[in-house]
């Protein structure tokens, strides 16, 4: 039962004492009297604690008795109690956006405790500003959208499959699309996983079996994305198989789990030049296939193509432990083989990896620290051996080691399809080439675009346990909109006046959420459910064709002039 909001505003002002927090400094009764003199204010009263149940009842009473259709509460900061007061208005039939707050505590009584007269005058001004806006605000609706309760997981590696399994167990339908002919991702190429040394293939096969037997999960291999349209709850993805078969998937959420590629150190340390310089991944394959030679000495070099001054500046997190693991495996199989690890800083972080490092040392694996500015060199020697020259940072002298195998630890890098996918989904890549999350600290697996999430090495280099944690994380994030089935989106959104829009496209580029597009006529169109109401488009539009609901130019200007003592007619 909503009151007719197109009528003349009838504003009620409720001024709070907040015990003596406001009342002890500001002359509340005087302020109430002043409020009554303001245009369109038909009622004003004071309360001891407006946020208390008594205070809220008085608001409801006032609305009913005086036929109020706008409410102003002058009390504390809106950042805490605005939702409470808005809810109170709604319960009494006043649209929650017909409510305005005047902050006369944090911004007034508490800051000017020793100047009660000035604080009182300021309080009057603050209320006048609130009333100026209250006279112009209109009821707003929070658009609701239905959410398709199914998810699209792009990438069938351990991260994608873990996310899919969790979502399936939670009762949602999941489509996994995987570009390779089989599921598994990077784990297919690994031998043992640290620090437990469990077999990668065994673990992988168990997960694949679970995925394939889950009736909520549909898997499509040799499949890639061709196009993605829509927004949260209503995505439409066109996927295509290698043989050209295309399909349209209607999903509510999308999860990016496309993994990463591994850097090939061409031109570095004799890679591809000398036959016995290989990468950790290639060593992994040799270990998996049982193709070890009776090497006398194996030398591993860390940070090859990572932690650089320019380019791949990042640390790839997993290479130190991978080297340690493979070194330990070599020692197990070839106890007489000498293994050296040349490192810059050993990334043996967390609860278990330091112990693993100690164990590796106990097994006789030798560690040599080198400096970034004095990297090792690898040259070919006689009878197929390699000579590695390195400045031993802790001994402070050049050391020469002769070995039959050099293993280069290289970083994970951006997946070859990441750029294309980022364009399809309109989600950003970071400067390191990996997908860029909504907020580095508090929204690490969300994208800024609602309804799309990221996990695993597509986000950044990480190991299996970390990928699994993130994958379970996105399973929760994606489940939220799908579980509530209907989403309420922001009411304070941008509106385009099509008659004024000249199609310059400025707003389209400025919107951080991709919520504005030019339609077939070249006119800007706001997808309201994607708009967050920041107002940048409205403030920038060269034709003044965009206005911001609940923060119109008229309203803000009225507040500014009210601050100076002027109330527009």
């Amino acid at each position, binding site marked *: 039962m909503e009151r007719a909001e197109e009528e003349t505003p009838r504003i009620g002002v409720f001024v709070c004492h907040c015990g003596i927090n406001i009342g002890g400094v500001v002359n509340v009764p005087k302020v109430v009297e002043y409020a009554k003199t303001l245009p369109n204010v038909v009622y004003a009263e004071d309360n001891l604690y407006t946020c208390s149940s008594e205070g809220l009842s008085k608001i409801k009473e006032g609305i009913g008795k005086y036929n109020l259709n706008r409410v102003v509460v002058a009390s504390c*900061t*809106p*950042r805490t109690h605005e939702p409470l007061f808005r809810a109170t208005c709604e319960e009494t039939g006043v649209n929650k956006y017909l409510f305005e707050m005047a*902050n006369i*505590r*944090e*911004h*007034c*009584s*508490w*800051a*000017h*405790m*020793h*100047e009660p007269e*000035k*604080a009182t*005058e*300021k309080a009057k*001004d*603050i209320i006048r*500003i609130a009333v100026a806006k209250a006279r112009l605000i209109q009821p707003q609706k929070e658009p609701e959208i239905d959410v398709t309760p199914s998810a699209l997981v792009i990438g069938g590696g351990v991260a994608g499959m873990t996310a899919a399994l969790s979502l399936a167990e939670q009762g949602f339908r999941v489509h996994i699309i995987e570009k390779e002919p089989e599921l598994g991702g990077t784990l297919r190429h690994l031998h043992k996983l640290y620090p437990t040394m469990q077999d990668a293939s065994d673990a992988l096969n168990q997960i694949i079996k679970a995925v394939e037997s889950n009736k909520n999960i549909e898997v499509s291999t040799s499949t890639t994305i061709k196009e993605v349209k829509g927004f949260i709850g209503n995505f439409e993805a066109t996927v295509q198989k290698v043989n050209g078969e295309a399909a349209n998937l209607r999903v509510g959420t999308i999860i990016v789990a496309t993994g990463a590629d591994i850097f090939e150190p061409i031109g570095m340390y004799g890679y591809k030049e000398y036959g016995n310089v290989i990468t950790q991944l290639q060593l992994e394959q040799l270990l998996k296939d049982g193709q070890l030679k009776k090497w006398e000495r194996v030398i591993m070099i860390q940070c090859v193509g990572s932690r650089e001054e320019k380019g791949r500046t990042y640390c790839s997190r997993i290479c130190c432990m991978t080297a340690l693991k493979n070194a330990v495996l070599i020692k197990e199989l070839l106890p007489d083989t000498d293994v050296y690890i040349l490192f810059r800083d050993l990334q043996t972080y967390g609860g278990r990896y330091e112990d693993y490092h100690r164990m590796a040392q106990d097994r006789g694996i030798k560690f040599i620290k080198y400096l970034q500015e004095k990297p090792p060199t690898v040259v070919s020697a006689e009878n197929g051996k390699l000579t590695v020259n390195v400045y031993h940072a802790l001994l402070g002298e050049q050391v020469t080691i002769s070995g039959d195998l050099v293993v280069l630890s290289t970083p994970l890098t951006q997946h070859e399809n990441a750029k294309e996918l980022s364009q399809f989904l309109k989600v950003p890549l970071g400067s390191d080439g990996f997908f860029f999350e909504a907020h580095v600290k508090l929204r690490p697996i969300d994208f*800024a675009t609602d309804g799309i999430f990221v996990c695993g090495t597509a986000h950044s280099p990480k190991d299996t346990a970390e990928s699994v944690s993130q994958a379970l994380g996105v399973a929760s994030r994606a489940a939220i909109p799908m579980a509530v089935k209907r989403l309420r989106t922001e009411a*304070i959104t941008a509106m385009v006046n099509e008659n004024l829009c*000249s199609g*310059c496209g*400025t*707003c389209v*580029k*400025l919107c*951080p959420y991709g919520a504005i597009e030019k339609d077939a006529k070249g006119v800007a169109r706001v997808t309201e459910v994607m708009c*967050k*109401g*920041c*107002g*940048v488009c*409205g*403030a*920038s*539009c*060269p*034709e*003044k064709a965009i206005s*911001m609901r609940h*923060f119109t*130019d008229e309203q*803000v*200007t009225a*507040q*500014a*002039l009210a*601050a*100076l003592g*002027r109330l527009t007619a």
Partner: protein
Amino acid sequence: MTFEPRIVGFLCNWCSYAGADLAGVSRISYPPNIRIIRLMCSGRLDPVIILETLAGGADGVIVMGCHPGDCHYVEGNLQAERKIRMLKKLIARTGLEPERLRLEWVSASEGGRFAELVKDFTSQLKKLGQSPLAEEKPDTKILAGVLAAKATAADFRLRVLVGKEKGLIEDANVYGEKVPEEELDKTMEEAIDAEYLRNRIYLMTKDEPLSVKELSKRLDLDPKAVLRHIVVMRRRGLVAIDRVEGTTPFYTALKVE
């Protein structure tokens, strides 16, 4: 009695408004001269509103947003910065002191900083004196300038330049070209100059038809420059010849649809 500056503050909901809250929560005292208006983002603030506020007699206007990198809406604060940079250049031409407009970054935990800024701005404005537009009888010359500035800030050309600034600079990066920020700056300065003068001319010729000579006198501008603007404005349909006296045409502003 020393004059008390009237400061209007536009604060963003997520950072600076919360910072102002914290100043209160921490009971930090500061001068009671500021009146705060809450926006969701500092990027919401249309330069026209700032000019309206200054024209309305505010002694100072302070805009506060989140520190770069912290904006709740990704980069709204950086957009605010671009607008205010343009605005300060514009205000400088009106005769109003550009120091009356400030842009500051205040985070939600910087209650102390908020209070310091208000203290600082208040004392700065006390020294500067009351705004020439604030008294009972505002300075007509400066007011005319600020109104022309308002019209300029509402005009297509400057708004599109400011709005596209980021895009122009960043797209250049994609092709590896040197960032032409200096070039863009120069273009902006020229555009501000030109459009401001055109709006001054428009408002003046709205009051009464004027000749190039008269306009040149009032604007303290070379007649050749004035004529160039008149030519552009005629093409844009903003002015037309009202009458000719001897060999001297008098121009009048045309109503724009």
